[in-house]
Structure formats: structure tokens, C-alpha cells
């Protein structure tokens, strides 16, 4: 059970020198992904979009790590770097193979890479863009099963049908093409495809964002059942803080390419330690029209910074209501502020920030 393995962070990932923790399935150390900005006729590089800019995270086997943060802060980029769908500019990603070896993900040999691609699966944010319109559901979900497990014919159809049923879709429709489905139905096709091979790590990028509450509950229950059965590990990217609270053992909060807070879920929601987390929690819309327009919401003012030109010091300072001169001068490192809790704010200990009760 995942919750049992959740204990305060005992070692600093990327701290250098320490023996790698046996429970860690995947670890990122100082990972950076920068995109060059090109300009003019000659496509001269005039700058870099620092989409991911020094991320240290460790994901333990069997846990669900939530990743939340502002639109454009680098969540998908980090997820695709983990997937090796995107090369990293700097840093290191390590993965514990099923035989216990610790692999450097950017340097996998062909066999290890094949195994990695089978064991680490991604549910993409935009199902429309990630499902090939020329293939039927049977082909989309069945292909990886055929390749990896050698199933074909009716055995393959059986497997695909079972998978479709699990995500609440009708097996009768397995010969339809993705465009003939609704948005939420397509999203579930994408989930079925990612889960079909019994992966070890699933990067779920806004995987339930298009689902209504009822089907979402069904999918969340499914994700948990699989985790309990197979000790699956999830990196769960979501903007929905109630889903994250429900599903995740720990949560990482990202802002402008960096992790600004990392904590177990309950303490983070009850008493955030970073002003950005506080603002996020305050903005969750309440399902009651009578509470509309209350004063609970912290409105983030100021322009959203450009990741190619982040502010000096603390990258949140241009929109932080607690910012001081020190915040402009000095960059706050992500540091331990309480046992098992990390925050990147100079005043993490002093500020009394509001959570949700």
C-alpha cells in the first residue's frame, strides 16, 4: 500500500555523495530543459525559455506524487523529460530498473530504452493530438500489447475489450476512430493505452481533466486499484487540487520551472509554507454559488513572468504579497523547513499562511 511507504524525506536527492535510496524509483537531479528562442531570417538564437530550470525530485516506488502549478510553469515539459520524449539540457534522471540497477535515463542502451519505454508510460494532456487519427481504438490500445506480449486475433481483442470496460467505454466501439468520440471518451482511450501494459511508472498529465465527477471517480478508483495490485507509481500532474488532495501521497508545487514547495499532502493543504501554494489553495472554486465573490481568494497581481527572463531573486516575488527587498536580491533555495517539508521562500518559517480546512 502506497501510504505506508510515505515517510518524510530522509535524504536530499541530488545532495551528492549519499547512497541512493532503495525505495526511490525515479530521481531527477538539477534537471533543466531549455528551449532556444530564435529570431529573424537566420534563426539566430537570442535567448532561452527556461521551461524546467533545476528540478530535484524523487519518486518512490508505489507512491503518487502530485505536480501542480501555474499554466506554463513547466509541468508537461518535466513529464516528457522523464518519459524521454524530450532531451534534457542539463542535470540527470535516474531510474531503478526492475532488476535493481540504477539507470541513467539519458544514456540508456537500446535494450534498456525499450524496457524503459514499456515500463514508463505517459497519459498525454491533449488526447486529440496524441491519438493517431488513422488508427482504430483496437489498434491504438492493442499495438503495444501485440508488440510486447505477442498477442493477436481474438486474444488481443479480449485484452483491449477488458481495458476499455475498465475505463467505462464500450468494447463494441473498438473499431471506431478517435474522432468519433467525445473529449472525455478520447481521454479515457489515452488512459487505457497507457495502462494496458502493466507499467511501473505512469506520468499522468491532466489525465482526468475532461471527465465529469462520476466517471472521474471511476478512473481514480481504477488508478488506486492498479496501484494496490501492482505497486504502480504515479507522477500525477493536475490543476484540480481536490483530485490531487485525494489521490496523492506527496505534492510538489512548481512555479516558473522550479519546485517551490514539496511536502506530504495533508500538511501542505492544512498549512502551506510557500506564498504561491497559499494563493493556489485560496483560488479553488467552491461548489456553492452562495459563496461566490467572497474575499477568500488571493488575486495574483502583476504580469506573469516570462520563463526566458525570470525575475531576479525569488521568481515569485513580482506577484508575492509578502515580498521584501531581500526577495529581489537573493534567490531562496528549496530547503527543508520542517521535517519532510521543503519550501523555497526566505520567510517560510515566519509567515502564517492559510491552508484549507
Amino acid at each position, binding site marked *: 500500500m502506497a501510504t505506508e511507504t510515505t515517510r518524510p524525506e530522509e535524504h536530499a536527492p541530488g545532495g551528492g555523495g549519499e547512497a541512493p535510496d532503495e525505495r526511490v524509483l525515479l530521481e531527477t537531479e538539477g534537471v533543466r530543459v531549455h528551449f532556444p528562442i530564435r529570431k529573424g531570417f537566420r534563426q539566430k538564437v537570442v535567448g532561452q525559455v527556461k521551461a524546467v530550470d533545476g528540478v530535484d525530485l524523487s519518486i518512490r516506488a508505489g507512491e503518487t506524487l502530485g505536480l501542480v502549478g501555474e499554466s506554463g510553469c513547466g509541468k508537461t515539459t518535466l513529464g516528457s523529460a522523464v518519459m524521454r520524449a524530450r532531451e534534457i539540457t542539463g542535470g540527470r534522471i535516474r531510474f531503478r530498473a526492475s532488476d535493481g540497477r540504477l539507470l541513467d535515463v539519458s544514456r540508456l542502451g537500446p535494450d534498456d530504452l525499450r524496457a524503459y519505454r514499456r515500463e514508463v508510460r505517459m497519459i498525454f494532456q491533449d488526447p486529440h493530438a496524441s491519438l493517431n487519427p488513422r488508427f482504430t481504438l483496437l489498434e491504438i490500445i492493442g499495438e503495444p500489447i501485440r508488440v510486447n506480449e505477442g498477442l493477436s486475433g481474438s486474444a488481443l481483442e479480449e485484452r483491449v475489450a477488458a481495458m476499455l470496460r475498465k475505463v467505462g467505454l464500450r468494447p463494441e466501439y473498438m473499431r471506431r476512430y478517435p474522432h468519433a468520440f467525445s473529449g472525455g471518451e478520447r481521454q479515457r482511450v489515452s488512459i487505457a493505452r497507457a495502462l494496458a501494459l502493466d507499467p511501473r511508472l505512469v506520468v499522468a498529465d491532466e489525465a482526468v481533466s475532461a471527465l465529469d465527477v462520476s466517471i472521474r471517480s471511476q478512473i481514480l478508483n481504477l488508478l488506486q486499484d492498479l496501484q494496490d495490485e501492482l505497486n504502480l507509481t504515479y507522477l500525477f500532474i493536475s490543476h484540480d487540487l481536490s483530485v490531487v488532495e485525494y489521490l496523492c501521497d506527496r505534492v510538489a508545487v512548481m512555479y516558473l520551472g522550479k519546485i517551490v514547495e514539496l511536502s506530504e499532502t495533508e500538511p501542505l*493543504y492544512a498549512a502551506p509554507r510557500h506564498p504561491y501554494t497559499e494563493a493556489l489553495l485560496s483560488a479553488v472554486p467552491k461548489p456553492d454559488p452562495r459563496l461566490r465573490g467572497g474575499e477568500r481568494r488571493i488575486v495574483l497581481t502583476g504580469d506573469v513572468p516570462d520563463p526566458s527572463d525570470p525575475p531576479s531573486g525569488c521568481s515569485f516575488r513580482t506577484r508575492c504579497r509578502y515580498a521584501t527587498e531581500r526577495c529581489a536580491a537573493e534567490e531562496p533555495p528549496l530547503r527543508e523547513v520542517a521535517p519532510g517539508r521543503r519550501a523555497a521562500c526566505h520567510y517560510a518559517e515566519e509567515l502564517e499562511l492559510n491552508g484549507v480546512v
Partner: protein
Amino acid sequence: MRAGERAAEAGGAPAAQAGGAPGAPGGEVLVELRGLKTHFFTDEGTVRAVDGVDLEIRRGRTLCVVGESGCGKSITARSILQLVEAPGRVVDGRILLRRGGADGGPGEVVDLAGLKPGGKEIRSVRGKDIAMIFQEPMTSLSLVHTVGNQMVEAIRVHNDVGKREARERAVELLGMVNIPNPGRLVDSYPFQFSGGMRQRVMIAMALSCDPGLLIADEPTTALDVTTQAQIMELLKRLQRELGMAIMFITHDMGVVAEMADDVAIMYLGKVVEKGPVDDIFHDPKHPYTRALLESIPKIGHRRRERLRSIKGIVPDPANRPAGCVFHTRCDAFMPGRCDATVPPPVALGPDRQVRCLLYGGDGGPAPGAPDAQTAAPEPTPESSHGD
């Protein structure tokens, strides 16, 4: 014309034709759907994706449409703009758009369902009268043109402005939807944007022509709550300033509570309940609405206890249950009634309507709704057209 509807419409004629009821809660009806049916004719059978939808969308107000995945929300929206792809087609019903007449002058009423899909007339409606934000941004953004060029083109189709001016407007709009450094990103391609940034580009494009009606299909699914709050504020402000009507499709009940004036709950191609937002949240009538509200996970909810979902699975739209389409999953199922009679709409107030036999409609007892009017069984398609 059904008895229930007559009460709701105060006069019998569709509200758009009657010019709406000035001063009535919600103001003038801008778009009205009457008995809309959109079906897909597939090899496996006919998928009745939208199967008799009645809705009214009012100027200056927001109608939120909610309902389970696959219940026909997007297809309803696409039908309004005649954007349903083959093998689908609007097979019945009316889509009445009131054009002009906002400043008191006489307007004209156009039945969009009667316009040729792809024809000139419907194209002149798109963008200016009605703009749409699609559920998946990449379906409508071009991969090979910069965001700026796509926006400039959209702006210039409907406004008589030069390229420079259109580009300035594009940058301004991108800034309004919180895209960082819009002056730089206007020259980027959609693949260089994050999922939520693309959604906001779509919003900016849709707003570029000051549409009378904005149809937004799940426009905030990829937005973190702070950005989402800013976008909702922006939409509300534009609505106040321009009197824009908004049809907002979402499954997020928190967003509904925040945005909606009116709510329509859809189930399997039909509107099963509609009414003002406060009534829907605090006095839901339809068992489906109740189940939906009960399954909202609240923040601060105990972790990892099993989540409630509505029992059973959504029936196949190609193979609908007899009687009430919800009866296979309903907690209040009445054997012999719910599986026999299609519940007609029952008016529970001037703007409040429900399709459930608990509130009458089949001549049986209606304990839940003493004031509900009994109405004839499901009318034939012709009679659902009003007069």
C-alpha cells in the same frame, strides 16, 4: 406544445420570436434551441447524440451546461454553428438566433438549423454573432502558422483593420488572457505553447470579434486555479461591458457555481433539468442532478476512501433505455412508470424545468411536486416545435 413548456414560455411562442420578456429574470433570449436532434448514422446504428434539446441562452448571462462524458454537450454546441461532421447531421429542431435589435430596434430571427452547413450565411454567423472555443485547442489551431498570424487573420475577417492594427490587437488580447510576454509569444507556433496557454490563445481568438454569444467548451480544463480565476473574471467583465451571452460547457461544479446564472443538466442527449444556479445547487430536483452534486469531491475530503460514482454505466446512445433514459441508474426508479413513459418537461417555476416522473407527467401521482402540471406523454417531433 407541451403544457409544461407553455408555462415556462409565458405565451406559447418561442421566446426569441416573442422578443423575450423584457425585465424578466435574465433578459432577452439571444439563442433558443427547440427540440434539437443531432444524430450520427454509423455502421453500428444511429447514435442519437443530441435527442430533443430545448435551451435558451440570454444576453448578458451565462448558461452552464453540465453532464456526464458523452452526453452530447459538445455536439449540441457544434450543432448551433452547423459544425457537425459526417456521418452526423442535425435531423430535427430549430436553432433560433436573434440578430440585431440589441438597442431596442426590431431584430430578425434566423433559424440556424435551416442554413446550409458550410454555406455563406452560417459562416457570417461564426465569429461575430457566435464564437466558439473548442474543447481540444489543437483541433482548431494550425500547426504551421504562428499564433499571431492566425489571430490576425481571424481579427481581419470580421473587422476592417490593417495588419499592423490587427497585430497590436492580437498582442493586447494575449496579454488579457495572461500569456507572459505576449510581444514575444505572438510570433511563436502553437507547439511552443503549453496546454493551458493554447486554451487561452483560443479564448483570445474567440474574443477578438466581440461576439454576441461565446460558446466555451471546457475552456479551463488545463488551467491552474489561479489562472482559471483570472479567466473567469475576464469573461465576466467582458460580459458586463459588452452584454455578451456565454454558453459554458464544463464538468467542474466549482466553476459552475462561480460562473453560471443558469444551469442546464444534460443526460444522454436530453436536458433533464434546468434552472437558476442557486436552485440547481440548493434545491436539485432530478435524481441525476442530485447524484451529480453528491459525487463532487470537496477539498478537505478524507483521502483514499472510495469515491462515489453514479452507479451503473452510461447507456449506449445507439441503444437507449425505454421510458426515462436515466431509469437504469436511478435511485428513485418506479417500476412500471419510469421504464414505460418518457418524462415530458415539467415546469416548476418560470425558469425551472425538470424531466422526471417524480414531478408528474404521466398522469401518475407526483408527490414530489404538488404544483407540477401534468402533461401529455412524449410528444411527436412535430408537436415539440411549438406553434
